[in-house]
């Protein structure tokens, strides 16, 4: 039994138009996505901008409302809950955000930022709270005297770690990490990724890791799903998808990753050309007449692909 099961999730945003500003169409940001997260694993959602990967993540924590479908967390459907009813579940599902600058309130001290979730759920004495915060600051590698500083006194990587500490204080089971390293430089990115892995081990966390950098996703995720225009086109064990992509979009995505080995240049260029050609020729094999990807079909126990 998975920890989180997403079943045919749809998130549609209305487009208003015409004479009376009525709803004329929908942006189908997420259009029928199903996948499952097992306890303790890291599941990666990868896709380009506008593919609906972030919207999916935000639907789980109710930052977006699901239009239809189910979001089962430990067997309980979250999609029908109101903002208030969601409160007890928020303890178990936390989120890490992309932008280390805007995700921390600039007017609050670190101590207040990290204590915010604690104050919402638990009644701790000032001393207990302080001890807790010091513990988590220590976990993310920040010195205890950073408690009384303001976010602007930290670098991007340190801020991101403050954000992680904040998400940890309630001892969540699931963390939704929405592009947590894409705003960071490579060297800082490495640091944050390491922290995420260490913490996963220590706190038995499950991650839903959303990203666009395939290198990072491959590095950190056990399993992953590839999203394209609101649909999952391929899903399974990361290793398998990288080594043996089946859907044309996945192939294209992987072929596009620039290679650190400069001697592979020509090979890469040729590969891209080949994939582009296949993309044009076999379009109907992968997409229906409306350009929508087909439903996922298992091709092995661990690998599902959207094929006709």
């Amino acid at each position: 039994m998975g920890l989180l099961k997403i079943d045919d999730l749809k998130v549609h945003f209305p487009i208003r138009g015409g004479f009376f500003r009525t709803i004329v169409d929908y942006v189908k940001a997420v259009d029928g996505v199903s996948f499952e997260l097992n306890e303790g694993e890291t599941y990666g959602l990868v896709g380009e901008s506008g593919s609906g990967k972030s919207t999916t993540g935000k639907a789980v924590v109710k930052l977006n409302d699901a239009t239809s479908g189910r979001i089962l967390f430990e067997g309980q459907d979250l999609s029908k809950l109101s903002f208030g009813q969601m409160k007890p579940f928020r303890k178990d599902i936390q989120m890490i955000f992309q932008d280390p600058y805007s995700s921390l309130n600039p007017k609050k001290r670190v101590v207040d930022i990290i204590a915010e979730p604690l104050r919402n759920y638990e009644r701790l004495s000032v001393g207990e709270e302080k001890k807790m915060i010091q513990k988590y600051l220590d976990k993310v590698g920040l010195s205890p005297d950073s408690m009384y500083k303001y976010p602007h006194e930290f670098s991007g990587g340190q801020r991101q770690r403050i954000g992680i500490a904040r998400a940890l204080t309630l001892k969540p089971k699931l963390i939704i990490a929405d592009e947590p390293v894409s705003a960071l430089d490579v060297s800082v990115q490495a640091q944050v990724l390491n922290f995420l892995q260490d913490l996963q081990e220590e706190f038995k966390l499950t991650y839903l890791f959303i990203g666009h950098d395939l290198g990072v996703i491959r590095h950190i995720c056990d399993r992953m799903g590839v999203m394209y225009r609101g649909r999952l086109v391929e899903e399974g064990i990361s290793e398998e998808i990288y080594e043996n992509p089946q859907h044309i979009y996945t192939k294209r995505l992987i072929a596009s990753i620039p290679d650190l080995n400069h001697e592979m240049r020509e090979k890469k260029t040729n590969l891209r050309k080949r994939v582009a050609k296949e993309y044009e020729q076999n379009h109907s094999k992968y997409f229906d007449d409306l350009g929508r990807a087909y439903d996922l079909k298992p091709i092995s126990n661990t690998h599902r692909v959207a094929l006709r």
Partner: protein
Amino acid sequence: MEKPILQIENLTTSFKIKDKYYMAVDHVSFSVSENEIVAVVGESGCGKSALALSIMRLHNNQRTKIEGEIKYRERNIVTISEGQMNQIRGKEIGIIFQEPLTALNPLMTVGDQIEENLTFHTKLSKEKKRLRTIELLTQVGIPSPTRTYDQFPHELSGGMRQRVMISIAIACNPSLVIADEPTTALDVTIQAQILELLKSIQKETKMGIILITHDLSVVAEVADRVIVMYAGQVVEMGTVKQIFTKPLHPYTRSLLKSIPSQATNKKRLHVIDGMVPSIVNMNRESCRFSPRIPWIPCNAHEESPELHEVAPDHWVRCTCYKHFYFKGLQRGEITNGIT
């Protein structure tokens, strides 16, 4: 050996912050030849974008000071008048910016924005300008150029806008194009297309390209020569082969090692201690990378680190590279970035 188009000697760019000047680009020297892609790579705050804007002299000149020489075809463009510089901008040197949405005027059609370049640098008739613009749009791979000609930037996708940006830069057949993070704002599939496009244009026009980027894999894909910058200085410079197969400077090696790749699967990534110093409070005396490799003894660094030519065309700053090893690994164990 191709002849150099641009030669930069001891270029120093300083910004005025609270009435004091701080060097963002610190005595940088390098050259770009015809038909060559030189990549300038480094993390944010290393001065690479300041370098790009200095070459074009696009900084706010009330709070920026540029010293040293930038010789474009034997002519020092640091000292020429603004009017003379306008004859070089757009015509001889083109530039591509990072954000294709904000870099285009929202109220002007794509066609007008490209034609503007031709208006100020050629004597083409109106009709000829239009034809040339459509030719350019075709060249950068825009599917329906005549339609796009009359469209506004907001009607185009990010990739298409960046193609428009490129056609503005190459409109007058410049001999040098500066691409300042041209693919950072784009998706990876589009990034690949834009890089291929730049390469194919270069093949046709033989122009030199300075590619500014933070992404080492992009560098590995397209560059001929690589300049690694740290804290405003060049710390290592060499051919793409030298940099990627035999990196020497501790910073280059650390950077390469921290990139997640196939080999690092689920393993811990290499982390560089500390953080990039800000230009306001940095120690400009000794090796600027030394605070981040504290386990290397002080005497391994030079007192005022210089660039040393360790192999033909391969330059490294400071002598600390000779003594550098990764913490946790045996001293003397040779590791390059990739493995």
